[in-house]
């Protein structure tokens, strides 16, 4: 019987190896298969003892081969490991790493979202004489143990909302959070709270969550990973992957495939390699802190040694995170930092933190992300210029502090007093002096001449031209910039012609006068970003900064240099993000623009950095910060994790800015999808959209592919986004400037200088 089980066991191992390596044939695998079948064939002929010996030898061979094969794993093989049904999952970890746990909000499929698992867990260990219990909040995606309803670890928006809720609970209870990333990506549906918007909310809260967060990455699929992955410590399992997009998705985009046609395995393999998704890649790029070595060919539920390693690592990481910010730096802290491997268990450190320590924790976390991805962009600004800019920054920060905080507050107080006094005086004058004046007028009717003159003045005011400086013609004023399309003599049909019967539009009228808006139904034709720069943001008068920060090809992605150069040449820009300071009807603001023509407005390291610097500048200068999204296709996949990491980075910048009292306002135009919406755009409390724009997490094609549901063509339209609560208003393009100005006057934080 024992022999049979061992054979069965070996069979399983062989099958697993075959699964991992997919179609690829390999001498090692062939050898194992041959040996195994040989033994199986002879199973009944051999006497028990010999068979056991044979099996032992075969098992050794398997061990050896597995170690050998482990070295030859390609990135795509890793993806297959991670996706394999035998891969460890969160339930395994809860059972084997922690000493006890209670699952919260779910019993199997009876769960608001079974793919997001929440549990309160404890570590119990003996340190010296004492037995201690330490509590943590465990949050993570679950794809196994009930595959039918786990949705493959693809979390629905409300699942992420649940995760956020319990992060806040952990914050209240002052316990660490352990998050486990086991997701191929978020489930791309828009129903409230919305895939993108909920991830954005999670990131926004995590950006300043006052609790230590330790993240463990096994399968980190883009947006879904970020929803729980913004940690103080990020540990990655050696056979996991962390990527901007699934290799299949990248291949589909790369191959320009549409409508269900599959990319070839070779292309997928190539994309997987190019995207730099492995643990080593991510460690090198600085996006994770540590790799936890797994057994050969990946951890499976029976690798108990591995669970012990994981447990040690979790305690160690939590200790590290906590000790870093504790005010009392004792020997223990040094010991923790020394990373003497196995003694983590033996060091006890209280995981509750004081208020000031929590503040330091958050600050440290924000700095950590701020420093990332420096290598993935090019800053063309000269050394001198940089020094000058840095000095200026300091000066302006000091200046703002004096002007708005120190002096401004005093001045405001004085102003208030004067205003009160003035109002008082007015009332006195009115009440006391007017009757007096009337009496005088009655007694001395001599000053009628004044009255007459006044009469003339009134007459003039009513019959003469007012404000002659504006000129006689008011309607002649045109847009400061019109699209070059307005020079073509042709007509276009409005897309709403079937429902609204709009007449065809003559292009010069449409783009010259109507700002690309159909006058009969209000449909907004896409408009160049230049139009907004000139007509809304007064670009000519503005002060652009950081224009030298340039997008590069940090992963050496094939042919991407060429494409990038083409985009730079076509648009004359160095990245998809333009940042400048301008005045909107007299209110100084900082503006960041994402331009669709530059690689679809996708966000990479350069764009993220510019955005962060703009937010910081707005904060320093006490200015409102406006993000105008002319269009964005998402995170730039060719930059891999360098792109994805901009989601937490920019969100942290926004969080810092808003916490400092700023007004952050987002205006969407044309099509805005994916990563940016799911992070630094979607987290704004004031998001507006230009009519006829689309806002969402994933395009209709991706939704159909991942969920199998065909969505309506207008699924992502601004009106639907508004009724789902994702955005907070829809503006007419022609009135964008007016609305923006009104918004600046009526919304936002406490630290804006013009208040």
């Amino acid at each position, binding site marked *: 019987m024992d022999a049979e089980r061992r054979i069965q066991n070996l069979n399983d191992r062989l099958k697993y190896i075959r699964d991992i390596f997919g179609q690829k044939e390999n001498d090692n695998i062939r050898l194992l298969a041959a040996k195994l079948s040989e033994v199986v064939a002879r199973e009944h002929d051999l006497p028990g003892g010999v068979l056991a010996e044979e099996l032992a030898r075969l098992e050794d061979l398997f061990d050896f081969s597995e170690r050998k094969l482990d070295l030859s794993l390609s990135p795509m093989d890793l993806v297959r490991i991670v996706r394999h049904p035998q891969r460890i999952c969160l339930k395994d970890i809860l059972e084997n790493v922690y000493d006890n746990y209670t699952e919260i909000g779910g019993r199997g499929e009876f769960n608001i979202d079974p793919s997001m698992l929440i549990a309160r867990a404890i570590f119990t260990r003996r340190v010296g004489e004492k037995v201690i219990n330490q509590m943590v909040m465990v949050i993570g995606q679950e794809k196994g143990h009930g595959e039918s309803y786990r949705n493959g670890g693809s979390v629905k928006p409300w699942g992420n909302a649940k995760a956020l809720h319990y992060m806040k609970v952990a914050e209240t209870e002052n316990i660490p959070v352990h998050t486990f990333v086991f997701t191929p990506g978020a489930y791309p549906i828009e129903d409230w709270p919305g895939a993108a918007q909920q991830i954005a909310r999670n990131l926004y809260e995590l950006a300043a969550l006052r609790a230590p967060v330790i993240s463990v990455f096994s399968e980190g699929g883009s947006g879904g990973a970020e929803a729980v992955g913004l940690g103080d410590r990020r540990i990655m399992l050696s056979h996991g992957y962390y990527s901007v997009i699934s290799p299949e998705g990248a291949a589909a985009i790369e191959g320009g495939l549409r409508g269900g046609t599959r990319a070839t395995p070779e292309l997928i393999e190539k994309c997987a390699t190019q995207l730099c998704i492995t643990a080593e890649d991510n460690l090198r790029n600085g996006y994770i802190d540590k790799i936890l070595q797994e057994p050969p060919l990946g951890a499976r539920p029976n690798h108990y040694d591995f669970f012990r390693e994981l447990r040690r690592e979790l305690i160690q990481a939590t200790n590290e995170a906590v000790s870093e910010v504790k005010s009392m730096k004792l020997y223990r802290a040094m010991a923790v930092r020394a990373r003497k491997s196995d003694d983590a268990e033996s060091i006890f450190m209280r995981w509750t933190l004081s208020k000031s320590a929590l503040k330091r924790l958050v600050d440290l976390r924000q700095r950590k992300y701020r420093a990332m991805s420096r290598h993935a962009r090019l800053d063309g600004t000269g050394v001198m210029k940089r020094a000058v800019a840095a000095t200026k920054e300091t000066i302006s920060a000091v200046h703002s502090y004096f002007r708005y905080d120190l002096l401004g507050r005093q001045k405001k107080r004085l102003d208030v007093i004067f205003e009160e006094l003035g109002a008082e005086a007015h009332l006195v004058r009115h009440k006391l002096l007017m009757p007096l004046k009337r009496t005088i007028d009655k007694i001395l009717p001599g000053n009628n001449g004044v009255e007459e003159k006044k009469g003339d003045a009134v007459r003039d005011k*009513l019959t003469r031209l007012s404000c002659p400086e504006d000129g006689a013609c*008011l309607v002649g004023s045109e847009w400061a910039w019109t699209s070059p399309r307005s020079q073509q003599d042709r007509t276009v049909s409005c897309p709403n012609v079937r429902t609204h019967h709009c*007449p*065809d539009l*003559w292009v010069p009228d449409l783009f010259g006068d109507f700002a690309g808006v159909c006058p009969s139904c209000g449909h907004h034709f896409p408009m160049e970003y230049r139009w907004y720069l000139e007509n809304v943001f007064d670009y000519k008068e503005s002060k652009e900064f950081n224009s030298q920060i340039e997008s590069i090809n940090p992963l050496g992605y094939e042919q991407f240099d060429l494409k990038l150069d083409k985009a730079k040449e076509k648009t004359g820009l160095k990245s998809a993000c333009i940042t400048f300071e301008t005045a909107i009807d007299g209110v100084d603001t900082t503006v960041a623009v994402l331009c669709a023509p530059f690689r679809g407005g996708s966000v990479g390291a350069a764009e993220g950095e510019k955005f962060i610097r703009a937010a910081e500048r707005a904060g320093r200068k006490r200015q409102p910060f406006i993000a105008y999204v002319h269009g964005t296709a998402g995170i730039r996949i060719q930059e891999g994790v360098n792109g994805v990491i901009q989601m937490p980075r920019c969100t942290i910048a926004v969080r810092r800015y808003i916490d400092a009292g700023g007004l952050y306002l987002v205006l969407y135009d044309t099509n805005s999808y994916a990563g940016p919406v799911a992070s630094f755009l979607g987290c704004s409390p004031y998001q507006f959209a230009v009519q006829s724009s689309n806002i969402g997490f994933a395009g209709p094609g991706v939704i159909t592919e991942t969920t199998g549901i065909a969505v309506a063509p207008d699924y992502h339209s601004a009106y639907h986004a508004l009724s789902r609560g994702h955005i907070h208003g829809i503006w007419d393009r022609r009135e964008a400037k007016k609305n923006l100005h009104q918004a600046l006057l009526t919304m936002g934080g406490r630290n804006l200088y013009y208040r």
Partner: protein
Amino acid sequence: MRVMRACMRLDLDFVCVYTAEDAESGHVRLARELGGDTSLYKIISYLDANELFSVADAAEATAVHPGYGFFAEDFRFARRVVRRDRPMVYIGPSWWVIRDLGDKINTKRIARSLNVPTVPGSDRPVYNEVEAEEIASSLFEFQTSQGIVDGVIMVKASAGGGGMGIEEVGNFDEFRSVFRRIRNYAKRNFGDEGVLIEQRIFDFNHLEVQVVSERSGTKHVHFGTRNCSIQSTGKQKRVEIAPGFAPGVIPYTFDATKVIEEITEHSMSMARESGYDNVGTWEWIVTPKGEPFLMEVNTRIQVENGVSSIISRINGEPVDILSEQLRLALGGKLEYSQEDILFTGVGIEYRIVAENTDKRFTPCAGRITKLDWQKHEWLNVYTQVPLDCEYEIPMEYDPNLALAIVWGRDLAEVKVRGAQFLDELILEGTSGGKSENFYTNIRYLKEKTGNILEF
């Protein structure tokens, strides 16, 4: 129709468009008669400019006449005519003139910059409540100083039109709430909360000055004035008389000759200053005190041009303003000056409309079974109603049936002739609806003939 006739007179070829609803109407028949089947193009709607340009290209037209309605006041249409890859001549003023003078607020500002009198009040949209109250209070003050006891001011949405978003205010206390109401209404309905505040002028005569200019925009003449005070409730003109006043015949409380001189002079100076370069009409209102105020400028030829034509002589020769428009638009010169234009007699134009004048001029649907009139040398009648068969009044447009111009040597004679024409006119029809009778405004016109030009 008259455009087609004018084309024939000037020996120009034309093409003409029509819609399915209009296939039976007079202008289609006339076009078929004058230009043959090839001059007719069926289009889907008169309101679709693309159809007109599409036909113009197919027919290789060189010039476009926008008619009397919709497109004649649309500067974008005029601009498109000349800015296409295959440009054509636009028969009317240049597009920038239409743009500048087509907007009432702008017209008011141009007028004020030239010291042309306009209705007291704001000359730009007011957004601010404080500013609005200031204007309103000065308006009340101003009216009091003018001796107007219960002055009324008008508050209207600057983006509105056609009687929408207008309210009158009788005293200052009400003003604030009315202003708010109109502003909110304007914001909801027009997307712009700008409000205009003006004095309300009661009891006035509506006068027009017919201006004709050369393409160069430097030479201008006028063809006298018209009085268009007789209007339906919807401010649609029903009777027009040229000249505008009859000083000497009717006792006016003011110097009518001087008023006419004044408004012609102001109109001409504005035409000169704005570089006006085709046919246009300056519309004025004249109060019982003889104060004229410029209302608006019609940057197009109007239906009532005929009544001005009929009293005008250039060096003794009769004139047709419409033909002049075509000739001048195509680059012809004004070979005569103002002194060569003399006015003789009085003309009346009647618009015969199927409508119930007792019921707020509601239009009436139905079929015309018979239309005929006695011919006279002092009478011109234009109609799209065919005389030899029945005619269904098209539902989509206003039920205008015919236009009649009567001429007389003096006011007394023209009144008699007008009445005679209306008496002799035979117009029979059946109502489309089951329950109602067929109405026309003939009786109304007769009543009005008695006291035309009186204040």
